[in-house]
């Protein structure tokens, strides 16, 4: 074990050991460690290679803002690229790999890019890959993607589950540091519903990383007690390992809870992560602040770390980044790091403060500890190979001094973490007092407190948090009396930022993740990219997985300095969701694979499965496609058998999917006359009529049947696809267009299971089945009859309608009896050779019969186009009548419905083929229409099709071509135009 692990407890369980591997090498750590703290404890300094120059990189931070320490976690299908070692909770058996290096972390061929660094400057892509243009897709982009890029995603299907959850609260508190805990306590004690989220697995924020006293006790313990109390309050939900990543309209927030990321794999029924949608009346933004790095030569060398992160590692994890750790600070805060190191018996070779004067208290503290203090001094650069060995310092008098050290803590000041305040359009404003941006223009109901608001002292955080929590509770209607505030010591939080340390020839990094140096920023400034947004696009500063959390302000301040402005003049960029990366799996939730979307099953589904049916998804519905018999390998053989079975005998098909709407009321007939193009009011009770509905624009909307069960009671059927839209259309008509009509509508699709019993022997099947319940003879129940009756004491409906063109009935029973009904039909039909049939046979028979369906009712066809022009009543007004008369819709040369058959019988037709005259070039100008539906017709013995042809029915008998350039090679065949009704054109069979 390396000597970097200090003695003492911190927040790790020292008496337990967990084992993990990094790049295949085994290490040990403790529960409570992060991967980063365990690697530091083990003396591992280089954890990754940089994006562009492949420079060795170490750990910069102790939080989610980490730009460098990105690793691949886990293996196989669970492999996750770009996880930040600084937030990965250590678990036994964890496997991590460094990324963006080849062949190894220690020796990386890509580091040669550093030698060409003058090439890889700002605007490199724009300047270099301009010519020849054709090279971009084929050569440049693939090469760049191989060389750059970060980790590799897992290839296999993710084996884990993800969930989405909704939460509602009076107060959402973002961040469980001192301000957030105080806010949650104040509101929670008052009885308000509170959700407190923190991305860390340990509540407390800086209280865990710093040494504070609250009411005379260790600050970390105060945080633990506060979290315990909150957990005991019934209306408070404390969510650790949860990042609030976005603020959205309607007081809605997105949060990602890493439920089992800290385990080797999720337990049974546990999700890996949960995506929370949180709706909060009020929000307290207690997201703290992010420390700024300082820009100087070699500031990216492993061993250079943010001073606050060093404190966190020392105090919380009991790890020091080096045996000797120097401190470079621009404010009072860095001194805390120096004192904590010394108090933990880590040698601090020097504290370099860029300021010439510091508070006397700090100076006294430093003297008491016997520290070497260098005021008015700056760290110019770092030395070393794959880690810091020493630093070059320029002292107050300008002398250059080399100081040997293993690590350097840098404290450049703090930026309030404003991210969530900007997602709805707020723009932070510059504060001269803290030399950073503070939240401004917050969304309604959101308030920032503590460090997130730029108040960096502990006392201010506790005060503002408690007040915000109290206010939120009171605005939600709870009495929240002011309570005594915890006692804390005053601390000094002064500082003066140092945007750039000049004087080193080494690369000074502004954005470590995207390898953007001071030189790149200077080029952008010289070339006129002066705004924050342009700077980002031109240099890529602030892009990547960390989105510039540690780099953006330094870059902006640098451009401001170089162009003689204040950062306030430059403005800052808008931060957009997500705050930290969110896995696609979490966004998909449970809707993947077979659960991608819900499926509607027909009442006979289980029976169809038991008959070995194949299925097809049509819209929401899963329907039986065919019922192949054992040994029927060829779909055509099954189709021919099913069609012949129906046409020569009897078949049964589940048609429950057709939309069914119950229409009642004294004005029901009037209403239906207005929504159908044909007349409905003349329909006698006990009869059914085919009807078409038009859209307002005159195009055919839907077709179906209307059955009249009483003078003011109708039942409509719609196509399966339009069931919901037809109901919406009717609701609009009765609620908005004609509220004065007495009409009641009820959707009853789900209520009834309905079966088509079709074929010349259908009557022979139904007679014994229905027994004396209803007389189905041709005299008593002729074509288009309908009736409601009782069957075995239950409601039932019978319609004599036909889609197949045969003598046919549709029998409806309550849905729960659908399964029993289809079994009874099959049993009754057994002596008659009844065949169950599916969508293939249904579709084929309707094409044989020339019935239009979805492919013809395609939203572009008029009733005339469909050969249904005669149905448009001239006796009444109805929706779509006026616009159906537009010149373009009644033009005689519009393509109209015809049938086609191949001139040579063995040839197959394809739907989508375009009609051309024989000899005409295939061009848009010569296009005469297209084939909409095709089928192999068992009754005709060849392929048949329906389509729309200019001139339409007048051209029956003509030979034309069907040209299809995209269905597997160019298909160009000669076809004969026919009547669209291929089968029983006189309709004798229907009425038999």
């Amino acid at each position, binding site marked *: 074990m390396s000597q970097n692990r200090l003695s003492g407890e911190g927040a790790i369980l020292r008496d337990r050991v967990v084992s993990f591997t990094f790049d295949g090498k085994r290490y040990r750590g403790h529960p409570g460690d992060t991967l980063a703290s365990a690697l530091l404890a083990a003396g591992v300094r280089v954890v990754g290679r940089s994006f562009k120059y492949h420079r060795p990189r170490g750990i910069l931070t102790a939080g989610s803002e980490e730009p460098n320490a990105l690793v691949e976690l886990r293996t196989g299908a669970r492999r996750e690229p770009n996880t930040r070692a600084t937030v990965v909770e250590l678990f036994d058996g964890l496997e991590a790999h460094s990324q963006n290096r080849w062949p190894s972390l220690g020796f990386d061929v890509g580091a040669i890019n550093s030698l060409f660094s003058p090439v890889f400057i700002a605007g490199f892509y724009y300047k270099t890959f301009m010519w020849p243009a054709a090279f971009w897709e084929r050569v440049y982009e693939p090469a760049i993607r191989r060389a750059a890029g970060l980790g590799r995603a897992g290839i296999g299907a993710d084996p884990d589950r993800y969930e989405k959850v*909704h939460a509602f609260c009076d107060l959402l508190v973002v961040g469980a540091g001192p301000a957030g805990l105080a806010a949650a306590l104040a509101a929670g004690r008052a009885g308000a519903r509170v959700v407190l989220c923190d991305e860390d697995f340990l509540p407390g924020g800086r209280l865990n990383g710093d040494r504070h006293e609250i009411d005379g006790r260790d600050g970390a313990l105060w945080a633990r007690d506060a979290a315990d109390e909150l957990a005991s309050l019934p209306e408070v939900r404390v969510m650790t390992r949860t990042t609030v990543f976005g603020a959205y309209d309607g007081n809605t927030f997105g949060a990602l809870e890493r439920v089992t990321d800290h385990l080797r794999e999720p337990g049974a*029924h546990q999700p890996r992560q949960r995506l929370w949608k949180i*709706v909060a009346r009020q929000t307290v933004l207690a997201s703290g602040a992010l420390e700024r790095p300082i820009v100087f030569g070699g500031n990216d060398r492993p061993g250079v770390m943010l001073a606050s992160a060093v404190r966190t590692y020392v105090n919380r994890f009991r790890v020091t980044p080096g045996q000797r750790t120097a401190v470079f600070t621009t404010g009072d805060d860095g001194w805390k790091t120096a004192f904590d190191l010394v108090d933990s018996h880590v040698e601090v070779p020097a504290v370099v403060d860029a300021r010439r004067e510091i508070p006397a208290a700090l100076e006294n503290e430093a003297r008491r500890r016997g520290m070497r203090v260098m005021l008015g001094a700056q760290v110019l650069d770092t030395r070393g190979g794959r880690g810091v060995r020493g630093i070059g310092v320029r002292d107050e008098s300008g002398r250059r001094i080399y100081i040997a050290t293993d690590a350097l803590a840098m404290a450049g000041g703090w930026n309030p973490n404003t991210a969530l305040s900007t997602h709805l359009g707020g723009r932070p404003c510059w504060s001269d007092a803290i030399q950073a941006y503070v939240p401004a223009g917050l969304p309604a109901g959101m308030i920032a407190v503590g460090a997130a608001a730029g108040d960096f002292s502990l006392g201010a955080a506790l005060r503002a948090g408690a007040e915000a929590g109290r206010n939120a509770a009171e605005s939600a209607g709870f009495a929240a009396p002011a309570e005594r505030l915890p006692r804390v010591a005053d601390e000094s939080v002064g500082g003066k930022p140092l945007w750039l340390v000049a004087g080193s020839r080494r690369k000074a990094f502004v954005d470590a993740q995207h390898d953007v140096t001071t030189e790149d920023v200077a080029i952008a400034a010289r070339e006129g990219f002066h705004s924050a947004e342009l700077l980002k696009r031109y240099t890529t500063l602030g892009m990547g997985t960390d989105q510039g959390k540690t780099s953006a302000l330094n870059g902006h301040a640098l451009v401001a300095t170089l162009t003689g402005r204040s950062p306030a003049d430059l403005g800052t960029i808008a931060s957009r969701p997500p705050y930290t990366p969110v896995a696609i799996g979490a966004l998909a939730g*449970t809707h993947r694979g077979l659960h991608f979307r*819900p499926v509607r099953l027909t009442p006979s589904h289980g029976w169809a499965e038991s008959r070995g049916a194949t299925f097809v998804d049509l819209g929401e519905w899963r329907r039986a496609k065919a019922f192949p018999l054992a040994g029927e390998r060829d779909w055509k053989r099954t189709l021919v058998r099913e069609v012949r079975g129906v046409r020569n005998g009897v078949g049964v098909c589940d048609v429950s999917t057709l939309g069914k709407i119950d229409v009642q*009321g004294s004005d029901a007939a009037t209403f239906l006359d207005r929504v159908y193009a044909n007349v409905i009011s003349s329909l006698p009770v006990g009869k059914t009529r085919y009807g078409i509905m038009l859209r307002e624009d005159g195009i055919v909307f839907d077709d179906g049947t209307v059955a009249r069960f009483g003078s003011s009671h109708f039942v409509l059927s719609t196509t399966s696809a339009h069931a919901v839209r037809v109901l919406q259309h009717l609701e609009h008509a009765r609620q908005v267009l004609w509220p004065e009509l007495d009409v009641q509508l009820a959707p*009853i699709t789900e209520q009834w299971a309905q079966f088509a019993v079709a074929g010349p022997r259908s009557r022979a099947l139904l007679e014994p089945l229905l027994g004396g319940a209803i007389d189905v003879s041709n005299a008593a129940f002729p074509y288009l009859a309908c009736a409601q009756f009782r069957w*075995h004491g239950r409601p039932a409906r019978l319609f004599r309608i036909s889609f197949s063109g045969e003598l046919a009935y549709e029998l409806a029973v309550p849905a729960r009896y659908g399964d*029993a009904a289809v079994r*009874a039909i099959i049993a009754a039909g057994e002596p008659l050779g009844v065949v169950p049939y599916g969508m293939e046979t249904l579709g084929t028979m309707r094409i044989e019969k020339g019935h239009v369906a979805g492919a013809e009712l395609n939203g572009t066809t008029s009733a005339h186009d469909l050969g249904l022009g005669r149905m448009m009543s001239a006796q009444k007004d109805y929706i779509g009548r006026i616009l159906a008369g537009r010149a373009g819709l009644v033009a005689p040369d519009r393509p109209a419905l015809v049938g086609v058959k191949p001139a040579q019988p063995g040839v197959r037709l394809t739907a989508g083929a375009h009609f051309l005259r024989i000899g005409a070039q295939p061009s848009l100008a010569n296009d005469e229409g297209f084939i909409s539906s095709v089928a192999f017709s068992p009754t005709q013995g060849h392929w048949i099709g329906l389509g729309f042809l200019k001139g339409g029915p007048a051209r029956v008998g003509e030979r034309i071509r069907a040209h299809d350039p995209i269905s597997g090679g160019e298909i160009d065949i000669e076809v004969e135009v026919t009547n669209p009704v291929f089968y029983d054109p006189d309709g004798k069979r229907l009425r038999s």
Partner: protein
Amino acid sequence: MHTDPTSLAQSAYAGLPAAAGHGSGVVATERDGLGIARIETRGGQTAAVVELLRGKLGIVPPNASRYVRCGDVAIGGLGPNTWIAVHESAGYSFAESLQALIGHGASVVDQSDAYAVLRLAGPKVRETLAKLVPIDVHPRTFHAGAIAQTVCGYLGVMLWRLEDGAQGDPAFEIWGGRSFAASLHEAIRHSAAEFGYARQTP
């Protein structure tokens, strides 16, 4: 003679897996055999129908998204002049007797088979519903007697808050379209699995 098909009613949840996980955080009970009817009053007769139902059933049909129960019957508001009425056991005869009761004052349509209704009870029902519906089911906002028309796993559903159980455990009814029962049940079962889920047939 052929089998009497009406003797073989199939529950909406027939054949679906009945449990997931360990424990009984959520216990589902199929609500089979209900009589369900949609009532929509005819022009201008709402007041008369309300008065009739108050007198005959002891229920004032609510003009809001909630329900009122009296004995075996509950009536819930669906929209203007429209209610859903439920009888614990009357089946298809319920709609007919309601129509007879109301006469020409309203159109009554049988919906007894249109819905797959599941009663969800147990200590973890709210945690489970939080994964399923995008509405607030906290007792402070969604009171006993409340109805919400919402979505669950991309499906339109109705959610009824029942009275809490004897142990103080919350109870709800979730109403989905019958044809979607398998998808809806899978969503519920998956969401409740971590708390322990079991479905009972009464």
